[in-house]
């Protein structure tokens, strides 16, 4: 994505420990009926960084992403994005990629991206066309604009879904398992994009259950039973095991077994 229409990049976001978190939750609890999903959870993501939420299926990753997207309301606690509670006033500054690719199958790639660009209120016709071109180039689908979604492979559909999440150049991206089902090459491509975006100031909250994704994140949180059992940089988390050659997977398993927190 070019910096020309990147709200996060040109906005002059300074890096530093004292700045306001772009994504933040405090004492956050949420339950589906009687089943508690998140318990007293806290998270703080600095602007221009990638925060990876890692956890097993059912650990609460998707619920947390949906709370930040404003699709769910917390039972208690506080959720903030760019200092505000998620809601209509904030929605054009958030890019959301749901876990399941929510697209219109009978429409073409370009029609899908164009539709959501219109919903996000992306500029006039020319500005919108430029934003769509830019988003499609970024996900390497510039030459597939006229193809219907139903004719694409799973990985391509996922890339369209990502293009929609970032067509309005939001300063905050909420990505729910964006790399599931991608081959290693595509996965690397996605992480290349994410790296460039954070360098331009975009903040990314990403959920995943693969340790391969985890290594790319600036900070990680291991989510288990509705709260983070550990949080830190990949190196910090590896170090918790005490073994020099420990992988993130080792660290995760170690922390789960010991119930320790860093």
């Amino acid at each position: 994505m070019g910096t020309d229409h990147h709200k996060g990049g040109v906005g002059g976001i300074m890096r530093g420990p004292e700045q306001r978190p772009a994504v933040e939750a405090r004492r956050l609890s949420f339950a589906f009926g009687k089943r508690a999903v998140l318990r007293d959870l806290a998270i703080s993501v600095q602007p221009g960084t990638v925060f990876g939420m890692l956890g097993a299926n059912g650990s609460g990753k998707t619920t947390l992403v949906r709370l930040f997207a404003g699709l769910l309301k917390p039972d208690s606690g506080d959720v903030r994005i760019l200092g505000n509670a998620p809601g209509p006033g904030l929605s054009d500054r958030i890019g959301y990629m749901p876990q399941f690719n929510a697209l219109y199958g009978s429409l073409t790639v370009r029609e899908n991206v164009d539709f959501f660009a219109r919903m996000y209120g992306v500029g006039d016709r020319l500005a919108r066309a430029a934003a769509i071109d830019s988003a499609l180039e970024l996900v390497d689908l510039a030459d597939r604009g006229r193809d219907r979604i139903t004719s694409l492979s799973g990985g391509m559909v996922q890339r369209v879904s990502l293009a929609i999440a970032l067509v309005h150049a939001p300063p905050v991206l909420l990505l729910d398992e964006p790399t599931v089902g991608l081959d290693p090459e595509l996965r690397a491509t996605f992480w290349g994009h994410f790296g460039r975006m954070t360098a331009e100031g975009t903040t990314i909250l990403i959920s995943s259950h693969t340790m391969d994704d985890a290594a790319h994140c600036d900070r990680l949180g291991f989510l288990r039973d509705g709260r983070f059992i550990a949080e830190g940089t990949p190196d910090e988390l590896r170090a918790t095991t005490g073994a020099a050659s420990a992988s993130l997977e080792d660290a995760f398993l170690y922390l789960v077994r010991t119930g320790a927190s860093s």
Partner: protein
Amino acid sequence: MTFDRTVSIATRVMREIVRDRRSLALIFLAPLLVMALVGFSFSEKQDTLDRVAPALISVFTLLFTFVLTGISFLRERSQGTLERLYVTPVGRGDVLIGYLLGFLIFAALQSLLILLFTVFVVDVNYQGDVRQMFVVLIVLTVFGVNLGIFASTFARNEFQVVQFIPLLIAPQIFLSGVLMPVEELPSYFQNPAEILPLTHAVRALRDIMLRGESLGDVVSELGVLAAYAVGLLAVAATTVRRT
């Protein structure tokens, strides 16, 4: 901006329907087959057919419109795109009006087809102006579209939307003067029948088709129907956020 979004949603809804060739064919063929069946089954009882035609036209207009809209709107939710829309700045009103407009074109064409086929091919005897009959059906169609959207905000899947047919449509068929005039219903059903929207559509269409009355004569019936249509959309706006 809001107007742009509404138009974009309506355009997208229409584009999706047009792209789905098989559904498109069914939208227009199914009502014709049903009305042809009605015509054949009454072929030796022209008087009865003439008498029940306004009610049958109304019922099938409502039924087809409801099913078309209810299921399509539900698909927006089940495929996750409705949730995705909620994360954009689009308002509930934009979504609902956009859907209404998008479906209305097809539902109105469907209603027109039902009317024209019944009047000219099934060859029902009538007195009033066909254009005025169509106006009644348009109001009924808007009501049906909104009823479909409203019902689908309560349903989690297609199966549940279909369950709404016996719940929302069947009582209207029995009590709205379709099987027998409202006046001939048991006294305890008279007042409930007056509450049902379809009663007013059937009465308006019957007055025009059988008695040769004009829209001016049935304006109160149309008013009730229109009030229901607007009311339903307003209520749907409060229930549509259910994901």
